[in-house]
């Protein structure tokens, strides 16, 4: 699967409080949450973001609160993939569970700036910065992470376990 979109670049330790502030956590739909996505770190993000765009960040993306509202807001905003040097554990698991593509790779080596056109070959394990002609590889998912992606998220796996489908 190939994903292509323009980058929105952030730094290290982007926490789930800035991805979706707690004052909106009494909302539960992707549409409501997406309207406030990244509001406390980048208040114009939601005006700029276009379907298919890619969030690019440094270390420990999604740290802090376990709120699944964070990946839901990102996916709801039309973001096709999040690329980071590393992800916080709960965010990583939540993203896989809800089917938001995420990639851990050498972001620094790609020299990405906001607006750059990025291409992610999910199955091939390659990220390319088409604007600057750089690329890097990432290892394939293993274990449960791979199983979750293949199943299209945790809900599908549980439905199978329960014999619903």
């Amino acid at each position, binding site marked *: 699967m190939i994903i292509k979109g323009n980058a929105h670049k952030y730094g290290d330790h982007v926490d789930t409080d800035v991805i979706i502030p707690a004052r909106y956590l*009494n909302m539960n739909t992707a549409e409501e949450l997406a309207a406030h996505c990244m509001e406390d770190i980048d208040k114009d993000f939601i005006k700029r973001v276009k379907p298919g765009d890619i969030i690019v960040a440094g270390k420990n993306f999604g740290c802090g609160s376990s709120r699944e509202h964070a990946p839901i807001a990102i996916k709801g905003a039309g973001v096709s993939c999040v690329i980071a040097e590393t992800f916080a554990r709960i965010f990583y698991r939540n993203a896989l569970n809800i089917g938001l593509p995420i990639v851990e790779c050498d972001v620094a080596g790609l020299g990405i700036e906001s607006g750059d056109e990025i291409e992610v070959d999910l199955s091939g394990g390659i990220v390319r910065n088409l604007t600057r002609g750089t690329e890097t590889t990432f290892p394939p998912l293993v274990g449960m992470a791979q199983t979750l992606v293949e199943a299209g998220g945790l809900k599908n796996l549980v*439905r199978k376990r329960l014999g619903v489908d």
Partner: protein
Amino acid sequence: MNIAEKLLANAAGEDHVKPGQFVNCRLSCVLANDITAPLALEAFAEMGATKVFDPERIALVADHSTPNKDIKSAMNTKLMRDFAREQGIRHFYEACGGGIEHIILPDKGIVLPGDVVIGADSHTCTYGALGAFATGVGSTDAGAGMALGESWFRVPESMKFVFSGQRRKWVTGKDLILFTIGKIGVDGARYRAMEFAGPVIEGLPMADRFTICNMAIEAGGKAGLIAPDQTTVDWVTPRAKREFQVFTSDADADYAEVFDWNAADIEPQVSFPHLPENTRGISEVGDIAIDQVVIGACTNGRMEDLEAAADILRGHKVAEGIRCLIIPGSHEIHLEATRAGLVELFLEAGCLVSTPTCGPCLGGHMGILAAGERAVATTNRNFVGRMGHTESEVYLASPYVAAASAITGKISGPEEI
């Protein structure tokens, strides 16, 4: 094996597990709160589940927006209440009789040593203080856990933090964990289990141990663990309504890293905005005027924390213009504090005493900061906008430092009082 590995091996029915291995574990308890439960229950229904695996092993706690701050929050709590009734879940708590999830689950004996627990709240790691493997997950994982009674785990590498020497006066579990996060950083234990050990930890009461494990997530930890000892067993025994198991690390257990620290070198700590790793000793803080103090939260809302605040505030007044919010962590703690005369002491000192809630910790309600305002809080996060406006600031500290700061109106150590 170390304690994390033993707990996961036991719940997976394996003799031996090692870091990196994927295991399926039986769950002793699945938790969700008023923010995460609505999505978890939606996921539960979408998974085609109709019955929870065991109503005794589900806990639903409305605590974040409690007492319900608006119509949406009230509807979320109603969703939980209705689900609990329909499924026969006894452990549903809300305003009146409830409290903050990570305080009441151990207090009511719902989580016990030897358990493997998932909770749709990142501070679920608190229960590691009991010698349970407890970790935060999102709503979909919690919904799956409620349906299946099991969850998958990647066995984490473990880090060991050994505290020796003589703990200084006014240095609490909060200071030890802020110090630790300051040393290793907010992703220093990412994906790993953090085991706290050594004579200083062994000498701490349970309240301090809960505080330490509560903040393992602030270093990225998957779990924070303290081996159960006599202190743990004495605390748990009158609360437990089912059997529990004690696991401790083998002498030759493997660790990815081991840190040895002398507690005598550690003074009360303050974490500066906007990351918990921005830690300084109280002597290096300087002159920082504040607007608000919050004493409470799942980190420091226990009776011992209120007693610590009272020790400082007794006979003093909160500085003019400072709002000092004291939030007991549960209905029982509120009652105990009232009977002990602490509520009167706090009110006379000029504090307000709120009913139990997570409210201000996450900038939900009950004490939101305006632009330019600063708070000293016994909470666990000081991210941008965490307690309100993106231009407000939160400084994390112990109840001693928070109470002392309320009296002086600037960040202060207890020795200044």
